[in-house]
Structures are given as C-alpha cells and as structure tokens.
C-alpha cells in the first residue's frame, strides 16, 4: 500500500470573491521508502501539498475536490484530533528556515523532551542523545537555538522528525537557507536516515538538479498543475515538457560546455491571473504553444514518464547556443586595485573582535567581470562594502582609477560617486517604497540637482535599457514583480554610467527563469556600456556563467583566485574542490 496518495486533489483559494485552484487536479502516489521530488518555482503551489497533509492551509485556502490519503486513511475528512495524532508520530516535517523553527526560549533538550514524551518515550534523554547521534551531533541538549548554526538547527529538526520512525517525512525546501557545503551534508544525512528507516519522503524544492540528486521520482509543478512526472534521472536527462526543458536550460551549469541561458519571457502567472486563464497554463510563455494550447487543458499522459503536453515531438527544437570560452579581458587599464585590505570588527560587550577580511589583494581591469564566491561569513559582502566606502578599512589600500579612496573624506566620496555604484541584494529593502520607479532610477541626478524634465528623459532611457515599458516609471516598487524590482535596482546604479558595478547576491532568491533574464540583461548592458563588475555570489554556476575571473573566499581570506575556466576545471585549494563538489549536478 502506498504511504501517500493524492487523487485529483484540488486546493482552492478565494481571491476577491473568485475561486482559483492553487493546486489543480494533483494525482500522485508515494510508495514506502521512496523519495518523491516536488519541483517548481515560487508560486507553483509546491508547498500546498505539504500544508494540505497537515491541513494547515493559509487562510482562505481549502481542499475543494479530490482526495488525499495517508496509508489508506483520508487526511481531509479525518477528525482534527486523529490527524494531530499522526503528526509527529507517523508524519514528520522538516522546515525551510531551521533557525526560526526552534523555540528560541527553550533549550534543545526541553523541545526534545516535549516531543519524545508525547511519543511515550520515558527515558527521553538517552533517546534524544541517540537521535542527535544519528545526525552526527554531540549532546547539545542544554544549548539554546541561538547558540547553534543554521545547519546544526536543521540537523536537530531532522533528528526530531525521524525520532518517531515516521512512515512519511515532508521536507519543504530544507536546504534553501543553508550554504552549499552544508546543504550537501544535510541532504546526505536525510538520505541515510530515510534509507535506514525505510521512510517515504516528499521532497519539495525549487532546484531541479538537487531534486534529481536526492529523489527517486520527480514531479514538476507549474501554476498548480503537474506538467511532468517520472523517474528522476530520466526527467533530468530527457525532459519532455517544454517547461521542464526551459527550466533546465535557464539554469547555468557548474560543469560542461558553457551555453547561453534560455530566457523564458515574463514569469509564472500569479493566482489572480490564473482565474482568467483557460487551457494550458504554460502556453503564454511556451515556445511550442499554438492556439489550441490555450483552449483545452492537456492531460498528464504516459506510463512511467508522464507529460502534460501534446507537442513532445518538437521538444528538441528548444535549444540554446553554445558560448565561446570566457574571453580574457584584463587588457584594459586597471580600474580597481586593492592591496593588503583588512577589516576587523571591534568586539562589543567584551566579545572577541571578528576579522571579517584579512589581507586581500586583487585588481579589476576596466570592463572586466570578476566574481567573488564564498559561503556566509566568508567576508565577501564586507569586501563589497569596503570597496564602496560603507565600511572603514582597518588596513591596506583601495585605489579606484589610480586614486586612493581609503578614507572617509569628501574627495574619496566624490571620486567613488563618479566611478563605482552598488546593486543591493534585496530589492524589497533597496527600493524606497514611497518613491516611484522613475524617481528611483534617477536618484543620482536628483542628488546632483538636475531638473525634473532632464531626469524624466533619463528615466525613460534607463527603463529602455532595462527592457521595461515606459509606463512603469510612475509605478511604486510594490506594484512590480520581483524581477522588475531587481531591474530597477540595477537601473539606479547605472544612472551615472559608472565604470564599476559592485553587485551583492543580486540574483539569489530569484526564480531560475527570472535569474536567466537578469543575467542576460547584465551581459547585454555590458556590451552596451562596457562597465566592469564585481559580482558577489554564493552561486558558483552564476559566477561561472558571467565572470572571466573568480576569487574564492573563506573566513575573510581569498583562498584561490584565477581565470574562471581554470579554477572550475582544475581547482587547486581543498576548499574550492569541496565547494564545487557540493553543488548539485556537479559531474
């Protein structure tokens, strides 16, 4: 008997009086001991299944049709106390944000005790220590969540989820908030426990390559519908639905030949837009779509590999051109030169000082794209802030266009203003919600006292550069999509045509298809304006795609630097090798 079975499951949201199916006719089965990956971009409805299992749907959402069974028992019709009985005993959950999923005022031990006592384990302490051992953690029962790292918290939560030997574990983006090397360890641990206990796992993720690595089967979700479902290796190697194929081609690869990225237009329709759609929900963005696609909903057809598209014969027409090997610029004059740069944050309240950056030296030539990769705490963001004068250096030297800009002075500020601009990570935080788009992208002119008419003209130019329609100039950031916001964020930095852009994690948190659009935009703008770029990123594939040179940072130090193709093909430092090996889909 299957552990989990959904048959034509519909989860409906009521939006402005209209019912919209957030999950539309989902059918799948999960056998004992198997791992099923539910893959989709944000808004695909991939978290709805997990929430429907616990019947903890967001307000306004409800299961309206179909059925959802756990081990033959109807989860929807079940009485709440019976369902609560299953939760934590036979069904475990692993959350997305481990740091906030543990109660901050209770010790790990007390939270374990609560859980294990409920399971009827009298000697909870030794059981808890055994559970922690199973995730390779020492006895930290007396510690509090804030004393642990995100990876440790996630391992604690995994230990708790598997402590009851559940039949089913739902893991909702369990590694998204974690660094890539920790992600690799967490995923391996989960797999080990799952195999040892023969647990079925529903693995929800946005990362198709990670899913392929972890799962037995993959179901790809688009706008609430499964568009492709099959064995993991088959789906990854031979995707037959145009969406799956485009998604794979939109994500830059960590190895193999460099290719262009497939830039799907627009983004997944939101729930509101779904209400007015008929036919295939992918049709408006699909390169294979024809009129008939917009009329009837394609059924999910096939034996072991099911595809909801009648045009699979043409799938091979979706291709991307190969790219020439990364050009080696560095022929232009030196734009940035940094020597022996160090930054120490003074310890407050008697804490030890932290060395954020130590003895970093590098240079960037005009027009060159340089990537800085590293995990959280490696000092890569501090490096960017030092360069932009947002932090005061402790030691070393920073020169922009040959002149020293190490100090706080007005002269350094003016020089930096002419030469360098920064693009921030999170457009939600980087765009003033009370300003209009046009005013944001021309803020630098406003600072210089340029008149309104001239500013409006420049705003139109910038929006055209960003590939955004002019009428968006009068919108507020809250009225834009995530991708558009990040464009505006880039546009503001481009206003004075800087020679250097410093970009901190500008595509992290964006969906793959939107990320591909932005990377294409950066490549095009580079060709038009010839600026240099210092790209801070935790995503090695993005750096490989965009940058000629790369620096690998760890604990404030540059451990390896060189031409991107050489570093990726033949890493010298152990840490670089570990980093590369941890990326899902690494050969």
């Amino acid at each position: 008997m299957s552990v989990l079975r959904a048959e034509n499951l519909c989860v409906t949201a009521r939006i402005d009086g209209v019912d919209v199916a957030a999950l539309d006719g989902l059918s799948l089965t999960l056998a004992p001991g198997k791992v099923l990956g539910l893959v989709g971009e944000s808004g695909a409805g991939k978290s709805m299944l997990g929430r429907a299992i616990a019947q903890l749907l967001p307000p306004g959402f409800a299961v309206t049709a179909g059925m959802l069974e756990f081990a033959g028992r109807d989860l929807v019709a079940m009485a709440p106390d019976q369902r609560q009985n299953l939760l934590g005993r036979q069904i475990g959950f692993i959350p997305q944000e481990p740091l906030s999923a543990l109660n901050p005022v209770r010790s790990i031990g007390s939270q374990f005790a609560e859980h294990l006592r409920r399971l009827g384990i009298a000697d909870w302490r030794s059981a808890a220590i055994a559970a922690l051992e199973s995730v390779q953690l020492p006895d930290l029962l007396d510690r509090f969540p804030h004393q642990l790292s995100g990876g440790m918290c996630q391992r604690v939560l995994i230990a708790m989820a598997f402590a009851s030997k559940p039949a089913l574990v739902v893991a909702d983006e369990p590694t998204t908030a974690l660094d890539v090397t920790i992600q690799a360890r967490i995923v391996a641990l989960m797999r080990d426990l799952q195999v040892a206990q023969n647990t079925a796992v529903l693995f929800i993720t946005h990362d198709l390559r990670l899913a392929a690595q972890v799962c037995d089967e993959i179901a790809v979700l688009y706008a609430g519908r499964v568009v492709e479902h099959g064995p993991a290796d088959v789906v990854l190697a031979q995707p037959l639905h145009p969406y799956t194929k485009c998604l794979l081609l939109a994500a830059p690869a960590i190895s193999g030949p460099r290719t262009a990225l497939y830039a799907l237009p627009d983004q997944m329709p939101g729930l509101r837009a779904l209400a007015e759609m008929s036919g295939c929900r992918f049709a408006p963005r699909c390169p294979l779509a024809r009129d008939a696609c917009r009329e009837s909903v394609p059924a999910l057809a096939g034996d072991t590999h099911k595809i909801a598209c009648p045009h699979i014969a043409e799938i091979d027409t979706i291709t991307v051109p190969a790219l020439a090997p990364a050009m080696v610029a560095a022929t232009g004059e030196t734009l940035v030169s940094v020597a022996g740069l160090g930054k120490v944050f003074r310890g407050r309240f008697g804490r030890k000082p932290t060395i954020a950056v130590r003895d970093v030296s590098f240079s960037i030539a005009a027009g060159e794209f340089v990537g800085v990769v590293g995990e959280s705490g490696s000092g890569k963001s501090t490096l960017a802030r030092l360069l932009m004068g947002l932090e005061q250096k402790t030691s070393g030297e920073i020169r922009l266009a040959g002149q020293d800009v190490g100090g706080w002075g007005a002269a350094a500020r003016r020089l930096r203003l002419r030469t360098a601009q920064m693009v921030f990570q999170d457009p939600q935080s980087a765009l003033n919600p009370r300003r209009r788009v046009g005013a944001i992208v021309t803020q630098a002119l406003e600072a210089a006292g340029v008149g309104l008419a001239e500013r409006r003209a420049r705003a139109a130019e910038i929006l055209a550069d960003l590939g955004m329609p002019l009428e968006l100039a009068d919108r507020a950031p809250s009225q834009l999509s995530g991708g558009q916001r990040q464009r505006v964020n880039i546009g503001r930095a481009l206003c004075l045509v800087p020679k250097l852009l410093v970009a901190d994690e500008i595509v992290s948190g964006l969906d793959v298809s939107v990320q591909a659009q932005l990377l294409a935009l950066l490549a095009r703008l580079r060709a038009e304006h010839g600026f240099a770029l210092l790209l801070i990123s935790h995503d090695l594939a993005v750096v490989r795609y965009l940058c000629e040179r790369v620096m690998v940072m760890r604990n404030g130090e540059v451990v390896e630097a060189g031409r991107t193709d050489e570093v990726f093909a033949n890493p010298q430092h152990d840490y670089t090798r570990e980093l590369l090996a941890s990326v899902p889909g690494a050969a």
Partner: protein
Amino acid sequence: MLAAFLRRLLAVAPILALVSLLLFGALRLLPIDPAAMSMPPTATKVEIEAARQAMGLDRPVTVQYAIWLGQTLRGDFGNSIHMRRPVAGLLAETLPATIELSLAAMVIAGLLGLGGGLGMFALRDRRGEAVAETVTTLMMSLPEFLWALLLIFVFGVLLSALPFTGRLDPGMTRPVVTQFLLLDTLLVGRVDVFFSAVRHMILPAFALGVAFAPPIMRVLRASLIDTYQEDYIRQARLRGVGETRILLGHALQNAILPTLTLMGVQFGFLFGGSLLVEVIYSYPGMGNLMVDAVRNADLPIIQAVGLTYCVVVLAITAGVDGLVMLLNPRLRGT
C-alpha cells in the same frame, strides 16, 4: 548571567548621578532663599546670613552640589523648611504607605492586564474583537485621577460601600513596627485594623491599577499574535503539539518577554501616578508630602522625594530587566 545583571545594575548609578544633578540644578534656579525660609520670620539678617554660611550657600554652586550629594548619600536630606522636621523622618513615614498602595495597584494592573490580554487574544478574528479593542481604547482615555474620582463618586458617594479618605476608620490607632501598615497590623495581631486598612486601600489601589492595565493587555495580545506567526509555532503544530501546549509551552513564554518590558515601564508610571491618587484619597503617602511641599516650595522635601521616586522607578525597571534576562536565554550571554 549574574555578571550581566550586575552590569545592568551598575548602569543605574550614572543615571542616578545625573538625576540628582538635574534635581539639584532645576531647583537651585528658583528665586527662593532656602536660608531665609529655614528660619523663623522673626530672624534677623545676621541670623539668616549665619544660616546661609552654615548651609554652605555662600560657596560656589559646584561645592553646594557636592555638599548636598554627600549629605544625601549619608541619608541626611536636611530639614523641611515648612514643617521644620528632618526630611528623612518624613520619608520614612510616607514611603512605606506609597509602596503598599503601589504594590497593590501593580498586582491589580498585572492581573487585569495579563488576564485581559489573554482574553483579547482568545477573541482574535472573532466578532468580539473590535468591541474589546474599543473598550481598551476608552479605558485608556480614563487616567488614574479620573478613575479615582469616579470610583469615589460611585462606591463612596452613591453606594456608600467603601471608605475613601485616609487609611483607617476614625478612632483607630495605627500600630507602628515597620511603618508598613498592613504588615504592622498583622504583626501586632490587630485583624480589625488590618481589615479597615484593606477596605481603605481597595478604591485607591483599584483606581491606580485599572488605569495602567490596558496597555499591558494590548501588548500581551499583540505579542501573542506576533508569536503565533512564528515558524516555531507552526513547526510545533506539525509535530502534533496540541493547542493548549502551544499557548502555554511555546507562545506565552515568548510573548511574555516584550510584555514584561512594558510592564516595567508601566509600573514606573504607576508609581508616579500614585501621587494623584493619594491626593484624591487623602492617603498619607509620599505623594501628598510632595504636593504639599510643592505648594509651599519646600525645597529639601521636593529634592528628597523627587530623588526617592527616581530610585524606586530605576529599581523597578532594573528588576524587570533582570527578570527578562532570566527568562530570555538570548540575553543571558553564552
């Protein structure tokens, strides 16, 4: 942990020094000659000048402050100009009364505030919510001195149910052991006097307590609502933890922290608000002493009583901060 709390206590010292400086400075600006006022009206100029010298008033202001501070630290607050008695003695008589009243009011405010906050939280997303919110808004529009007057009118005048002047029925003599009346009556075994004192405290304590309860209700409700949005609450639900346990074992422990911090501030305000309630109920505490002193420009009393209020407020906030530190592992240091 202990070190952190001691550091918190140490932080009080410079604040107190500044407070004393401010008190001293503000009142020294007055066009009042403390020497002349401390002497009988018949005193000659020579006598007054002698008093000035004895009080150090002919010396520079900084020296005067040093003298005053030194005396204050030794517990010598000088003599009341108007009552011609040592201020320290007056404080010893009135401070315990004010503390008794404020403590009773704090218990009432705490019970009403926490109970009301839980009640309002239980009403969330229900029809009663808007009503409960409007009621707290209206309650916040009645400050302690209006509550005091209204309670007198209803329970004292209309219903004649409770006494509303002084601390004891006329004719009763108060036993003095510790100056804390409720404690003393029990210590000497005068239950009748004890009950009279309790009856006299009901209205003022309730007026003071109920006036400071609504903000506590609101903060507890708001932080409970915030806490319920947190991931760990959802994770606990997903682990099958029941709703009662979620409230008592997870949500309340977190939501109480901001509530306690606010209660510290509220109790400081409440302690100050006792002044008005004492005046209205002719309650022989520090507030009445202060108001009389203010009317008579009795500087030594104003300075000493002002300082005492500050010391108690700082003690309350430091105590509450300590409690929050105890309950919040993130503040305990690693």
